[in-house]
């Protein structure tokens, strides 16, 4: 088996070069045993075309840099064995993210924006005491948080998501995962309703069409749709509660309005 002739059809384009137009370039290579897609790309760059751009750092599915569309589906190049692919392999950059060149995209900026949008840090009103012992939490909770924190920010879930393809401001499965992570954390003071304006919208859970692709293509196997469903139920309940007590959500918004005019 590992002796096929491989044909790569690779998307090439440098958006910073006005002369460059998007095109597909063909590379051929003989298969060798235990070759990964990352290995094959490195060989192309070393032996055939030094100008080919693609990202990698860790080569062991930890850094999340090397995600790309392999025959249409988002995958990590370093974690993809060539022997599991057909001999004709189409490579495209991840959609949705800004193209740096060829197979390289800028996921970092988007992930930073996402982190700021969901305020991806512990919100704690207590003053910090560096000498105090850390508060204990149940082991189960710690395990759950650990599980939700395994995300490597590769962007596969966003690239796999149909909702994200038609809504550039969509928060993405990973954004919702992040919120679920902080909602689970007992050290974070934020309540369900505090997330409503960020995730109870069409850019959040209610924009998700439930295609489930995010979970199926997450290379770390994180239960994304379970987390989204968890948020969907929480946000649906929040909306019912806030309308049954009459003032609810709008009172907070009025304060926000006041803060704006006061400034």
């Amino acid at each position, binding site marked *: 088996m590992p002796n096929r002739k491989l044909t790569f059809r690779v998307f090439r384009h440098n958006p910073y070069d006005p002369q460059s137009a998007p095109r597909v370039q063909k590379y051929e290579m003989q298969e060798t045993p235990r070759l990964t897609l990352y290995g094959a790309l490195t060989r192309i760059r070393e032996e055939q075309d030094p100008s080919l751009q693609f990202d990698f750092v860790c080569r062991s599915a930890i850094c999340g840099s090397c995600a790309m569309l392999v025959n249409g589906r988002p995958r990590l190049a370093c974690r993809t064995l060539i022997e599991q692919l057909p001999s004709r392999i189409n490579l495209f950059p991840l959609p949705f993210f800004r193209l740096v060149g060829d197979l390289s995209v800028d996921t970092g900026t988007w992930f930073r924006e996402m982190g700021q949008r969901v305020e991806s840090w512990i919100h704690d009103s207590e003053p910090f005491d560096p000498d105090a012992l850390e508060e204990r939490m149940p082991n189960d909770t710690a395990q759950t948080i650990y599980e939700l924190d395994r995300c490597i920010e590769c962007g596969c879930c966003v690239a796999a998501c149909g909702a994200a393809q038609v809504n550039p401001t969509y928060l993405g499965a990973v954004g919702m995962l992040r919120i679920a992570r902080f909602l689970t954390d007992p050290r974070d003071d934020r309540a369900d309703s505090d997330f409503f304006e960020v995730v109870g919208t069409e850019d959040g859970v209610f*924009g998700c069409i439930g295609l489930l692709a995010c979970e199926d293509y997450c290379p770390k196997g994180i239960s994304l749709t379970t987390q989204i469903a968890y948020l969907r139920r929480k946000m649906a309940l929040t909306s019912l509660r806030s309308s049954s007590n009459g003032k609810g959500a709008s*009172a*907070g918004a009025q304060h926000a309005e006041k803060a704006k005019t006061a400034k």
Partner: protein
Amino acid sequence: MSSFNGKVVARSSRRIGGANNLAPRAQWAALPRTWVSLNQVRIARATAFMEIALTLTGLALSLFMLMHLGLLFSILLGRTSMDALARFLERYFLLQIGASFLVLFLVMHVMLVMRKVPTTLTRQWAMLRHMRAMKHWDTWTWAFQGVSGIALLVLVAIHIWVVLTDLPVQSAKSGERVFQIYLWFYIPLVVLVESHLNVGLYRAAAKWHVLSRRLAHPILLVFTGMVLGLGVAILVTFYRVGASLS
């Protein structure tokens, strides 16, 4: 204390104030900052209601269809039982009441669903390209829901019209209809209703996570088989009734 408590207010005003100047310009950041405003919270809440209502109308329609199937089951027991049942329903105008609710829920269901369907050509194109590239089963089920839904809207409307303009319901009339050209109308109607209903229940179960997908697959496969089998059996019986009368 309201559910949007002091903390949120603090965060919101922080956002309006200086801290967000740190944010690099991305598309969402370039949006006007009205999303903390009163309107935005109302829209968010309306969206939540629509999400719940979509599932509820889908469920209501599914229950209606199962009830409809249950009533038609009477033809399998014989023509007299179906005719008796039809007379009973018509005596109390239950047929007209049922049909009104069906139309009401159908219209609501379609209006709620449209929120998620890409409506501009650019977006439809992007979605189609995405679906073809990904070859992902569950993504295609959504497209199936959209297409089968539109077909159903037309077929169900015709069906309601044909039945309600030809009251009272009688097994002889129904049989003759099926025996004639309407067989080719009812086959796609039955297949589409049952598959749309089952795929819809599967998707709703996954969406709210009431069933794990591993469990949902076999359950729905069996359920679809049962419902489709029953539908076909009913159609065959009507066809026989029609054939014996002509």
